[in-house]
């Protein structure tokens, strides 16, 4: 390994990063996840922690750009240079830039996250069968509205699982259009556009108006690339046009003719010789995770290694099951030392199902030739707990909350208590009905009002308020100003004496305890405020001044400055042996 001259390194271990923009190739959530995993590669072997910022200046500013993108080192179109990053320091130092003329994937072909439909945001499954035909790309077959879709299992006819693929007809990203889809036709500088355009920009990014008149409303967003879109060339984002003619010959598929580098390309109109419109055909793409992990190595102070299997080797190589080479570990630990404390916890299978994404919005958008699904949600497996069962083997509690200084763990009508004071052994099980009569067995969240010490319990769309054993409720959660479409409240964080944050799915609301109403400006996305915790946490609670986000048997602990400082097992909190 090599370090930069002078052993440039960060003088603090809590390194911050900010993602300034996104690539049209990948869904924002996949990009966020790839970067988070790339940082974890390094934090797993050093004392470094990485916290994502959403505004202001971070140590590592991450951006996508093409060719001349604002620094003295322009990119070079597709392939060749993939990315670069600067060693630690002020200003542009530490920043990482990714060439957006590359096709960014997870390294093995299109990584297409679906929207709506009934697959809860699952990835497309390619190839998939539909009506006796195999599809390796998203398709508009079976629909009249032109929305591309895909199956998320191998056989749509058998499983009926599908979702919609990214397209400008579904949403835009960045800009100021709040993610709204393009409106076609739209007017820009008195000209009418019927598709996304790069006009008015010099960075090559395709955009559209999200109202019918940009000149008037100034609302716009960037167009996500369809999986069938060409990469680079002079027609980025357009689909190949088959057949097309080139030098008098007709082509019905991508070709490398006319190029000395063997790369496959296609024309995006029917006649290349006449229109000269072309682009490269989508390929396996480059793994954003692997390239980012390499670039972040530079941003932390590592220079290129001459060990071929090292992550810091300058050439790109796709590896399906990546792990750091010993050379990389020695390099980064030379700069920052080894990780102290327990080793990171490997994930292990859970006996309950958990959805990685939020519940899809109900939609009627199904391929027209197939029946609509009867349900848009995946049922979760409900496991009753025998009171003799050891709580240390419960893999997912209904509720965890602090009541009068003790942590309470609820599951199926029973609860256990644990404390970090005195005898640290957990106590229980106790019957919920004995202490808080009239509550259902299955609760979703609970919290103690810090001022009045009243207990609030939530189950499905109802809530109860207990003063001692005296109960008010059940009342509908809409009474608090929450949306009627909300299915449940899954977590609660007390903020000061008169505010409580309520969590559901990927959003949270702020409840004013005095007015018993949700404050204006909510919901907000969890990711915006609480970066680095799982978005599908099913328990959120405050304990000893820390925020805890639980997923299955794991918890993510966050300081009041919103930095994740520990990931551990829930049974540590239960003081299990």
């Amino acid at each position, binding site marked *: 390994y090599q370090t*930069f*001259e002078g052993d440039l390194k960060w003088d603090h271990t809590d390194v911050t990063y900010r993602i300034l923009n996104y690539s049209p190739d990948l869904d924002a959530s996949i990009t966020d996840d790839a970067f988070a995993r790339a940082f974890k590669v390094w934090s797993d072997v050093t004392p470094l922690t990485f916290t994502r910022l959403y505004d202001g200046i971070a140590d590592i500013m991450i951006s996508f750009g093409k*060719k001349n993108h604002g620094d003295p*080192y322009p*990119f*070079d*179109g*597709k*392939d*060749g*240079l*993939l*990315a*670069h*990053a600067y060693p630690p320091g002020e200003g542009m130092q530490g920043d990482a830039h990714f*060439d957006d003329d590359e096709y960014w994937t997870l390294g093995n072909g299109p990584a297409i996250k679906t929207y709506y439909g009934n697959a809860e945001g699952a990835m497309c499954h390619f190839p998939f069968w539909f009506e006796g035909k195999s599809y390796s790309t998203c398709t508009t077959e079976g629909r009249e509205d032109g929305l591309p879709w895909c199956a998320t299992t191998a056989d749509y006819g058998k499983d009926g699982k599908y979702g919609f693929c990214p397209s400008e007809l579904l949403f835009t990203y960045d800009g100021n259009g709040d993610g709204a889809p393009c409106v076609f036709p739209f007017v820009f500088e008195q000209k009418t556009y019927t598709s996304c355009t790069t006009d008015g920009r010099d960075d090559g990014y395709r955009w559209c108006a999200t109202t019918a008149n940009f000149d008037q409303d100034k609302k716009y967003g960037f167009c996500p690339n369809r999986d069938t879109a060409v990469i*680079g*060339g*002079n027609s980025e984002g357009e689909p190949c046009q088959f057949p097309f003619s080139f*030098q008098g010959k007709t082509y019905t598929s991508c070709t490398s*003719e*006319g*190029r*000395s*580098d063997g790369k496959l*390309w296609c024309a995006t109109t029917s006649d290349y010789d006449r229109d*000269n419109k*072309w682009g490269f055909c989508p390929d396996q793409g*480059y793994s954003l995770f692997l*390239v980012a992990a*390499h*670039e972040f190595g*530079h941003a932390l102070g590592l*220079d*290129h290694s*001459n*060990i*071929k299997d090292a992550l810091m080797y*300058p*050439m*790109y190589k796709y590896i399906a099951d990546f792990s750091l080479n010993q050379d990389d570990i020695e390099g980064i630990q030379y700069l920052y030392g080894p990780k102290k404390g327990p080793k990171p916890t490997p994930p292990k299978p859970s006996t309950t199902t958990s959805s990685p994404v939020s519940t899809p919005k109900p939609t009627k958008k199904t391929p027209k030739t197939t029946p609509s699904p009867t349900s848009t949600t995946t049922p979760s497996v409900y496991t009753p707990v025998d009171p003799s069962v050891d709580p240390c083997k419960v893999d997912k509690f209904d509720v965890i909350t602090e009541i009068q200084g003790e942590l309470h763990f609820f599951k199926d009508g029973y609860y256990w208590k644990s404390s970090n004071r005195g005898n640290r052994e957990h106590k229980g099980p106790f019957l919920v009905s004995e202490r808080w009569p009239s509550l259902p067995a299955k609760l979703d969240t609970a919290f103690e009002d810090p001022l009045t010490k009243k207990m609030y319990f939530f189950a499905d769309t109802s809530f109860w308020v207990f003063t001692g054993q005296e109960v008010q409720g059940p009342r509908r959660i809409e009474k608090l100003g929450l949306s009627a479409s909300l299915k449940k409240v899954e977590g609660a964080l007390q903020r000061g004496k008169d505010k409580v944050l309520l969590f559901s799915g990927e959003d949270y609301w702020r409840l004013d305890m005095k007015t018993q109403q949700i404050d204006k400006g909510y919901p907000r996305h969890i990711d915006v405020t609480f970066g680095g915790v799982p978005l599908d946490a099913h328990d959120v609670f405050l304990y000893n001044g820390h925020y805890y986000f639980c997923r299955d048997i794991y918890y993510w602990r966050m300081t009041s400055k919103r930095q994740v400082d520990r990931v551990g097992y829930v049974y540590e909190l239960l003081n299990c042996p």
Partner: protein
Amino acid sequence: WCLPIKSTFVTFPGDLIKNMTDIELAESYLNRFGYMEVLDKSGRQAAVSTSKALRRLQNQLGLEETGKLDQPTIDAMKQPRCGVPDVRN
């Protein structure tokens, strides 16, 4: 049927990677990634011969150090890679 297929290469508009000869590619690569100019012992920047630069590149990339623009070296130069120079001056 034995006639060789004669390809005509064209310049594609918007394509930044031009049809370079191997020598042009090598010169560009060695310059861009820091192999052609190195600091001497007194700290001054000094140009090195192409052969020396190639040896250095071959050493860095774990190739046989021939000092010549051989096929493995050309192939390595065509690989997708990180834009950070290998030799920092």
